[in-house]
């Protein structure tokens, strides 16, 4: 083909294939649309659970909560992840996408499927929560919508894998794939497993909803559903860790401390993360204690180990790069002198900190077989996963979006002053929401509950005053987080519509002080992607150590140990159970 399909971004140096670029844009834009929808619903949910506001009626609340979970956890995140897959294959490997037509069919299926289930929610007869536990029934179009969406996502995964094959065959790169692409491959492998688990349970459940199957066993449903429901969160982990590495490389030219360790950690995800579905079943009937202990620990916490490794190597890589630039004073000059005013950095770093310190620690603690007794289905659980998904994944995606607006969409980011603050506002709101949900959950407040004052119940029960107060603060946090999320949507969508076009000599981070020049589709075949140059300093290149990061990691470990034993102590105060 002699057609010139690629353009080179002069300063980022990235090559974009025209069709892959359109696919990326379409998926990313749809993702942001669902973030907007889901965010508005989240605001309504937060304002209903806040005592004193109690905004929605019970019926509207349960519908809004169902739609909020589905729109954010599935649609926003997976649409955006598809864009990440096209970026990590076609753009990073400088390769044409495999079967782009089929890629578009996948996109259309995702669009149709997601629309169908949103219609089902609007009709009001499918308020069954994101988990849709049988035998509580939803309308058939709810299940069908999820199935079509999953098929579309599966197609996207195979187009990604096909693109890798083409890149290898056409030798568009030298040596092994870059680490970021490696992370995306891991996300894709987990996605295929996730979708297979989902198909195994949603297909029969759909047939049950139209009357072709009599009965779905609720325990089996939960096992398979969580094979999808939790594994899909592991796609997010792999994807956002890959984005952390990508941002470290983009902003600092950071290289992984050692490829072997980072890639080995990603491999642990593939081998062990899927066992995680078990930690949703720790207080379920029909499973033995040893099954629970082995599986919930992802086989001795080897996947947790993987996340702890990334938690060290990502900031460690940044620290090494910064120290080489001369920020060598003390333990933390490299961090203090980081570009905190650039939302690409602040978003990424806040994502990393909140994901690790709060999301990671609470997740492992509540996934301990016996400790789950004091946490299962309390509002502690959404507290945990807002730290992992709303800050960990969503904020990482927001951060990379600030990079993609100029590079991919060729627009200047509007309102740079607000963009600078957006990650902080969003994180501050989320932190209030998360910490006080964790607190209220520790005092037993249930999740997915319209009225913890039980005004319409036949009996009375009064939660502790502190629990009610914490729900109030969490509600305020939710509202502030919604403002932060709305700012992101406003800036992202506003930049695409009103942002200055970057076709002629504009700048990549002009709003944040970095230069960029012109580009258009003038390249027929990009230069081969060469290996990272060997560094001159020292034979091993290990002269610079990430001491500051290591200290942060020790603080993390200490918090982890303390928090674990606080919960173990709490558990020991319960009634004797055996």
């Amino acid at each position, binding site marked *: 083909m002699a057609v010139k399909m690629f353009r080179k971004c002069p300063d980022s140096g990235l090559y974009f294939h025209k069709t892959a670029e359109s696919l990326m844009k379409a998926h990313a834009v749809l993702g942001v649309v669902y973030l907007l929808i889901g965010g508005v619903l989240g605001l309504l949910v937060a304002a209903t659970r806040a005592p004193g506001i109690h905004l929605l009626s019970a019926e509207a609340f349960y519908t809004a909560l169902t739609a909020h979970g589905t729109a954010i956890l599935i649609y926003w995140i997976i649409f955006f992840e598809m864009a990440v897959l096209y970026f990590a294959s076609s753009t990073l490997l400088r390769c044409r996408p495999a079967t782009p037509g089929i890629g578009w069919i996948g996109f259309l299926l995702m669009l149709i499927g997601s629309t169908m289930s949103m219609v089902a929610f609007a009709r009001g007869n499918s308020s069954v929560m994101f988990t849709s536990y049988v035998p509580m029934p939803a309308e058939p179009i709810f299940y069908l919508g999820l199935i079509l969406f999953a098929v579309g996502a599966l197609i996207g995964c195979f187009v990604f894998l096909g693109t890798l094959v083409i890149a290898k065959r056409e030798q568009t790169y030298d040596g092994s794939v870059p680490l970021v692409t490696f992370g995306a491959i891991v996300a894709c492998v987990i996605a295929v497993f996730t979708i297979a688990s989902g198909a195994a349970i949603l297909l029969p459940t759909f047939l049950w909803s139209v009357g072709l199957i009599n009965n779905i066993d609720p325990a089996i449903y939960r096992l398979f559903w969580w094979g999808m429901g939790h594994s899909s969160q592991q796609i997010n982990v792999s994807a956002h860790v890959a984005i952390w590495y990508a941002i470290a490389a983009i902003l600092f030219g950071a290289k992984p401390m050692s490829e072997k360790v980072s890639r080995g950690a990603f491999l642990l995800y593939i081998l062990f993360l899927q066992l995680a579905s078990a930690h949703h079943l720790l207080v379920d009937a029909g499973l033995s204690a040893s099954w629970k202990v082995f599986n919930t*620990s992802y086989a001795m916490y080897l996947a947790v180990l993987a996340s702890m490794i990334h938690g060290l190597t990502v900031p460690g890589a940044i620290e090494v790069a910064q120290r080489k630039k001369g920020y060598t004073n003390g333990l933390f000059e490299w961090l203090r002198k980081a570009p905190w005013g650039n939302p690409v950095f602040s978003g990424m770093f806040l994502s990393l900190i909140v994901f690790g310190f709060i999301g990671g620690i609470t997740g492992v603690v509540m996934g301990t077989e016996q400790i789950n007794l004091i946490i299962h289905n309390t509002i502690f659980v959404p507290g945990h996963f807002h730290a992992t998904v709303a800050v960990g994944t969503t904020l990482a995606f927001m951060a990379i979006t600030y990079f993609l607006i100029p590079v991919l969409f060729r627009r200047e980011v509007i309102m740079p002053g607000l963009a600078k603050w957006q990650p902080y506002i969003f994180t501050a709101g989320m932190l209030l929401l998360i910490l006080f949900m964790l607190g209220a959950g520790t005092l037993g407040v249930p999740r997915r509950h319209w009225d913890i004052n039980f005004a319409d119940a036949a009996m009375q029960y009064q939660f502790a005053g502190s629990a009610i107060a914490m729900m109030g603060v969490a509600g305020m946090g939710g509202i502030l987080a919604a403002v932060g999320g709305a700012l992101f949507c406003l800036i992202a969508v506003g930049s695409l519509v009103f942002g200055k076009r970057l076709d002629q000599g504009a700048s990549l981070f002009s709003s944040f002080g970095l230069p960029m020049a012109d580009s258009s589709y003038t390249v027929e075949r990009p230069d081969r992607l060469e290996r990272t140059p060997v560094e001159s300093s020292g034979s091993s290149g290990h002269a610079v150590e990430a001491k500051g990061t290591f200290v942060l990691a020790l603080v993390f470990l200490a918090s982890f140990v303390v928090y674990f034993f606080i919960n173990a102590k709490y558990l020991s105060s319960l009634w004797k159970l055996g």
Partner: protein
Amino acid sequence: MSLTPPNQMIWWKEPIHRIEVTWIILALSWCLVLFLWMPYWHVFGDQNLSSESYRIKPEAFEAKAKAMADQYTVRKETKMEIPVVKPPPGSDVYLVARLWQWWPILELEKDKSYRLHISSLDWQHGLSIQPVNINVQVLPGYEVVMNITPNQAGEYGVVCNEFCGIGHHTMLGKIYVK
């Protein structure tokens, strides 16, 4: 760089940073502590959920609960005349979850053990005993048997913490410990 292929073709043979090795050893050790704590608590801890459970038809479970209530009801409470049942210590106690009620009200003795059977007659529910904060999933068709020994007297609320439809937030039960 993470956006370019590794500089060595054989990247799995490159040396590892000292800090990375140290951290991997520390993190792995902690992971093993976390893992071993669970079997440890099964042996030395007092709060372990039994894995005794059976498949059961909702009608059969309801019948067993009714038989217990007929035998040991001591009074009735609320406008709905829900029986308060006081079974002898050590006996089998049944708690029914259904839309949208925990049935019956139980009255137990402090520091005495009971075999508490729970199951749902319809959809999934979540047993959440408050404020002691014990939370167990309740499925239709499965009967879970927990050995419980309440260690503090008081009036406990039984909240449903698994969403079970529009009346979910009205599903509240009671356990007295005397």
